């Protein structure tokens, strides 16, 4: 197939390498270095999609990041990606893409009927209708609208690509490699600064790739190539292409996304698809250039209407003609540059200039070349449906209000230039209060908020000479501030054509009796009358206009539409543009792949997984694990075909009857040292700590200042000034921060040090009537009798050559011990316990059996200490000292906390002694009351009591202390259960606590 719109001997593509690709099922070819857009245009394809609302045919408008139309569905490696901009997608072998938002196809799109009904769909029409009948919005209208909206189709397959993060520091980050960026980078790098130069496009050079200028006796393009080559060789410079700095955050942190594989058929081995760079820069030079503004006229969305700068770029970079019969419509000299390029390649353009009599070097050159120029002329409307076929043009009066006789002119494309809009997004994101520059009718950066300097056309400077001069100086001065060096590079001489002033005119009036649509936002189909309607209806703030009409809210984020929208509002409202103000720029500058933002923390690695040193043993012994925060703990050890219920019952029974062992490594452990520890603990815990002897442990409860229980655990006095605190698994980190806060800020006079030792110790709880037998054999040299190691006692021991700490503490309510050894010896300890315990029928038990044991003993845990309960609620009032002060004590006398009918933990047994009560059930007086049914309390934890062989639950019940013996109902409407229950003491087993002391 021939490429009718490709011309010879021009462009930066590699004509030696043909690349085949597919668009809408049809095969085409392009060259290495093409974008999908340039290759399609070369093949004469101008129809790429349909618009959002009216389904009007859409082609290409720009040649890069500002493209509002050319959004395609990409297919690659059995995957598909929605919403890819064809103007940015580089061509690779085998690329496949399809049009979106059209059915059955882009040529014949049923949705285009909207275009004929468009008068019924003005801005915000959906707020005014679809209200009747009531249920139809959700059931009928919304699904219909949803189906019509959206662009591409997302694949729900898991992403197989890899994304990486990189953190980098530099002296100067330079965002864009046009003339201003290159000059700043070069000056700074030569002055010894660490520089990162980021270029969004594959090629460096920005406007130098397409402009006819001369710098230091080289063409602009050669100069750029030489500077980049030199920068790449410098050790203090990082040069990155395909890298977009998209966000400017606090404290000069910028974020850049680097695309490493999107231009390749598939990612290279060991290379990620994209890399996200977090860059902390001492200074930022914003050299992001400017984007050409559209001129607004009738049917200005017709395929073939393109930005004049894009037409020039397609020609000079890709050797592609956007048309063979171009009409150039301009209000400034830029259009002439495009026209001259056409003419040089044998194409005769016609220029319509809105100005009446402009004079400049570039205009003179166009005249010399014999180009047909019509001054004071405008395009009234483009003609043609799927491609421009001709244009209605007319002379326009000096005041730009009246059109002359409409004439028809044949053309196959219209290249528009409405002057330039500086790309101030990054400056604005940094907090810069931008200001309106009347000379260029656009906003430019004002006072910097952070360390940021904007150069070149992004700063509203449109001559190369001044751009280079100021950019070299900026690079020099900023680097000098940091490096203190003063190496200056000489500023090269510049040859460029002088340009003259642009015309402020941008929107062509409608001719009498015509209702052409004049588009402001091309992707979201926002036309001039939409904005006028919004204003008429009182949506007058620019934010209201934006939200009511959706102007600037498309995937191009209004890069080509925002300023024209502002100008229109200012015209209608009769205000100057700065009084209208622009909407806020926020990151990202261009859409960023979510995978790149997240990086490697996906799948199993989305959060850390913490395992005890005994984990492998658990695995080998058929443990079924449960997530306890980020820890994995054995929930039960499966034997044969046991389920959770059978296994945990067996394990719990074995603890009550013989002995069991449980891995308690995950408990938080804090080592506390210093002469004032006792005083400190006395302030942290609700109970008294001043008299705890060495070699003794004590249970304690700590509160937040608001009186709510924060955590509980035991603390042991290891030696005179050395204590060992345990916390719950969940609260370990919070408790440490809490202790540090009080020690460092509130009571710095206390001489106490705390450090987390959770990871340093492995722990095993040995529980059951035969636990002492196991202990005796584990520590034959140590007296672990009831006298030698009484309840809440502590000893150090030698476990077959390994140092161990032995605590006689119990969570299960049985005679029990907890042995700690250094983590590395954890597995050794565990295997020894299992080996020695064999003759006493030891079995490991998991968290489920642990729960059963604690529940039937009435020991409160996380489900009762849920951040809403006070000690009284948990039956812990006996641990609250009346004599001394402690954290949170003052809060306990609030009236709700001391109310007569305050909630309290109780036991709950089903009357039939058979039906388990689902956790989360609520206790009520009447099962069949009308709703809302008053709730007296809720079931916090349930188990099958192995002691009594019937279900037992704990509940937090209003007036719990007076409810023992009451008959209530436990209701779980979610599970459709109504269970008559009796309230009993929460201490269901061994209420006197004799076993732990036996």
């Amino acid at each position, binding site marked *: 197939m021939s490429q009718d719109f490709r011309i010879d001997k021009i462009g930066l593509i590699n004509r030696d390498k043909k690349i085949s690709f597919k668009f809408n099922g049809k095969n085409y070819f392009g060259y290495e270095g093409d974008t999908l857009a340039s290759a399609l245009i070369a093949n004469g394809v101008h129809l790429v999609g349909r618009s959002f609302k009216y389904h009007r045919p859409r082609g290409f408008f720009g040649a890069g990041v500002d493209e509002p139309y050319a959004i395609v569905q990409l297919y690659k490696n059995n995957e598909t990606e929605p919403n890819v901009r064809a103007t940015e997608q580089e061509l690779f072998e085998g690329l496949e893409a399809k049009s979106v938002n059209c059915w059955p196809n882009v040529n014949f799109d049923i949705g285009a009927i909207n275009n004929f009904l468009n*008068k*019924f769909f003005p801005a915000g029409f959906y707020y005014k209708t*679809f*209200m009747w009948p009531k249920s139809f919005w959700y059931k009928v209208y919304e699904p219909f609208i949803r189906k019509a909206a959206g662009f591409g189709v997302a694949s729900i397959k898991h992403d197989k690509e890899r994304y990486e993060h990189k953190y980098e520091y530099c002296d100067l980050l330079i965002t864009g490699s046009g003339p201003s960026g290159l000059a700043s980078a070069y000056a700074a790098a030569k002055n010894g600064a660490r520089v990162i130069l980021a270029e969004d496009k594959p090629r460096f050079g920005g406007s130098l790739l397409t402009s006819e200028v001369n710098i230091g006796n080289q063409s602009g393009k050669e100069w750029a190539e030489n500077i980049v080559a030199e920068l790449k060789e410098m050790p203090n410079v990082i040069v990155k292409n395909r890298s977009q700095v998209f*966000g400017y955050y606090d404290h000069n942190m910028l974020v850049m996304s680097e695309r490493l594989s999107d231009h390749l058929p598939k990612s290279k081995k060991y290379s990620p698809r994209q890399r996200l760079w977090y860059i902390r820069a001492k200074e930022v030079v914003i050299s992001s250039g400017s984007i050409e503004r559209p001129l607004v006229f009738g049917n200005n969305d017709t395929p073939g209407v393109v930005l004049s700068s894009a037409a020039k770029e397609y020609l000079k970079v890709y050797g592609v003609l956007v048309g063979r019969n171009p009409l150039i419509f301009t209000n400034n000299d830029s259009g002439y540059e495009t026209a001259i390029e056409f003419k040089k390649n044998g194409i005769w353009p016609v220029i319509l200039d809105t100005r009446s009599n402009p004079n400049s070097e570039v205009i003179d050159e166009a005249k010399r070349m014999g180009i047909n120029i019509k001054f004071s002329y405008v395009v009234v409307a483009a003609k043609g449906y799927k491609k421009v076929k001709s244009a209605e043009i007319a002379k326009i009066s000096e005041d730009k209000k009246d059109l002359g006789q409409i004439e028809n002119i044949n053309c196959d494309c219209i290249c528009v230039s409405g002057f330039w809009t500086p790309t101030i997004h990054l400056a604005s994101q940094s907090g810069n209060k931008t200001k309106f520059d009347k000379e260029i009718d656009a906003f430019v950066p004002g006072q910097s908020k952070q360390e940021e300097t904007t150069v070149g056309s992004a700063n509203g400077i449109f001559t190369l000479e001044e751009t280079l001069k100021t950019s070299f100086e900026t690079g020099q001065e900023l680097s000098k501030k940091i490096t203190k060096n003063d190496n200056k590079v000489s500023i090269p001489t510049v040859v460029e054509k002088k340009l003259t002033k642009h015309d402020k005119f941008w929107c062509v009036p409608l001719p009498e009796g015509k209702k052409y649509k004049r588009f402001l936002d091309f992707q979201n189909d926002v036309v001039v009358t939409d904005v006028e309607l919004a204003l008429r209806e009182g949506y007058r703030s620019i934010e209201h206009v934006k939200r009511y009409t959706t102007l600037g809210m498309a995937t191009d984020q209004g890069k080509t539409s925002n300023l024209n929208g502002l100008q229109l509002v200012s015209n209608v409202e009769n205000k100057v543009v700065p009084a209208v103000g622009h909407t806020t720029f926020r990151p990202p500058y261009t859409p960023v792949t979510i995978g790149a933002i*997240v990086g490697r923390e*996906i799948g199993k690695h*989305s959060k850390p*997984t913490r395992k005890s040193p005994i984990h492998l043993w658990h695995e080998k012994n058929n443990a079924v694990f449960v997530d306890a925060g980020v820890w994995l703990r054995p929930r039960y050890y499966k034997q044969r075909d046991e389920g959770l219920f059978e296994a945990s019952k067996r394990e719990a029974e074995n603890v009550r009857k013989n002995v069991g062992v449980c891995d308690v490594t995950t408990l938080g452990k804090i080592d506390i040292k210093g002469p004032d520890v006792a005083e400190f603990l006395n302030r942290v815990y609700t109970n008294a700590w001043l008299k705890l002897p060495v070699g003794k442990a004590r249970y304690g409860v700590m509160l937040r200042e608001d009186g709510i229980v924060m955590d509980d655990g035991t603390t042991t006095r290891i030696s005179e000034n050395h204590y060992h605190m345990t916390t719950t698994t969940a609260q370990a980190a919070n408790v440490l921060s809490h202790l540090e806060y009080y020690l460092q800020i509130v009571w710095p006079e206390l001489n106490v040090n705390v450090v987390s030792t959770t990871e340093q110790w492995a722990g095993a709880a040995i529980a059951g009537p035969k636990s002492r037998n196991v202990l005796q054999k584990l520590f034959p040299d140590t007296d672990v009798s009831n006298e030698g190691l009484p309840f809440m006692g502590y000893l150090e021991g030698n476990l077959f050559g390994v140092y161990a700490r032995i605590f006689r503490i119990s969570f299960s309510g049985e005679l029990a011990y907890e042995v700690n050894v250094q983590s590395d010896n954890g597995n050794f300890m565990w295997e020894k316990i299992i080996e020695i315990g064999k003759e006493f029928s030891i079995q490991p038990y998991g968290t489920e059996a642990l729960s059963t044991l604690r529940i039937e003993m009435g020991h409160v845990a996380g489900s009762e200490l849920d951040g809403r309960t006070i000690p009284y609620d948990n039956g812990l009032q006996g641990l609250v000292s009346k004599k001394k002060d402690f954290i949170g004590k003052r809060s306990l006398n609030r009236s709700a906390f001391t109310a007569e009918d305050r909630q309290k933990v109780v036991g709950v047994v089903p009357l039939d002694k058979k039906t388990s009560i689902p956790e*989360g059930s609520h206790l009520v007086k009447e099962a069949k009351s009308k709703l809302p049914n008053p709730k007296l309390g809720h079931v916090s934890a349930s188990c099958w009591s192995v002691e009594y062989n019937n279900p037992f639950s704990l509940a937090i019940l209003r007036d719990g202390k007076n409810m023992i013996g009451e008959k209530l109902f436990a209701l779980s409407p979610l599970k459709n259960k109504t269970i008559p229950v009796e309230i009993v003491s929460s201490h269901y087993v061994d209420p006197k606590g004799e076993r732990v002391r036996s």
Partner: protein
Amino acid sequence: MQKYSVFSLIKNAFKGHKDWEVAWKDPTPKAEYDVIIIGGGGHGLATAYYLAKEHNITNVAIVEKGWIGGGNVGRNTTIIRSNYMHDENALFSELGMNLWRNMSQELNFNVMFSPRGIINLAHSDAQMNVYSRRGNSMRLNGIDAVLLGREEVKKLIPMADFSENVRFPIFGALMQPSAGTARHDGVAWGYARQADSMGVDIIQHCEVTGFDVANGKIKGIKTSKGNIKAKKVGLCVAGSTSVLAEMLNMTLPVETHLLQACVSEPIKPLLDRVVTFGAGHFYCSQSDKGEMVMGGDLDGYNSYAQRGNLPTLQHVLTEGIAMFPFLSKLKMLRTWGGIMDMSMDGSPIIDKTHIEGLYLNCGWCYGGFKATPASGWTFAHTIAQDRVHELNAGYSLNRFSTGHLIDEKGLGTKTWIS
């Protein structure tokens, strides 16, 4: 007032849409009002509407520093639900649900209430139990709730991560089928248009600079457009409450924090529920325009900046991909930040104050948008009757002294932790 309908739309289409009236006027402030509402956000506009509609008080002004709907009502993730555990929150929100269901018709403005259901994913049996407590509580309060098993969840949202390569597998979920979303801007505009039509003055670009209080009574306010007298003044300025409180020498149990949200590029319909992640803090729905709307944690330090930082979004989106792996390939299109009142127990305050005639509506934390109608309705009642309604009695200012806290999350006063 013009009625909006398909017929009026067609009629106007043939007149080139030239005859549409303004949705609300742009009046200059009068010298005195019966009630001034400070804050032209969702809650302020709703309060004014219900003052006029339910209490026949129409000599009302709404005073707004910027443009109406520019605060949190215009920068949220549009989720509407009443899936609360505590009775105070549940019954209040259920009033809201009833108002939401009829809002488009009542306001004659399509707010696009879409009861698509909210699914709270659970990732352990323990979490299923916590959700059971909440769900059972909802059911006993007459609110719809169902508990879903893993397979049932899979049928509703097959794009969630049901693979082996998952850190926190989905065990099941609590679902409130009647919960949903609405068009946030439409809510503000709908209330504004109706309030305006009943005589309420909506005064934009009018910043409050001070208060006129004498003998413990409110007399009026000072603004950038001059002093305005008022018999009663209601504060409805979530995010800026502390700033106005300072002018009144009040210190409140509220801190201002920043909450970010973001949307992806629009894609064809894929997700037709609201889903929240259980092993973290992430919520997601798909807008009618096709964008995936996503949010999560606060930025985590006091802030009045409507601009956030990337690490928070990175964290939020990490949980997003953990829940919906397909999000990885989508592109983040737009981010924004809202500033919110974080109260010390996570629940709001709607109450009288120690100053006669001054009423307080603040502390909405993450949940302001869904509360818009119920907040306006009860606040209007509180102002009009000079006493709280039973549905907002729990949202008293003195609950922090009495201990009658309403702490859904059990996190206490560290408001920035979620």
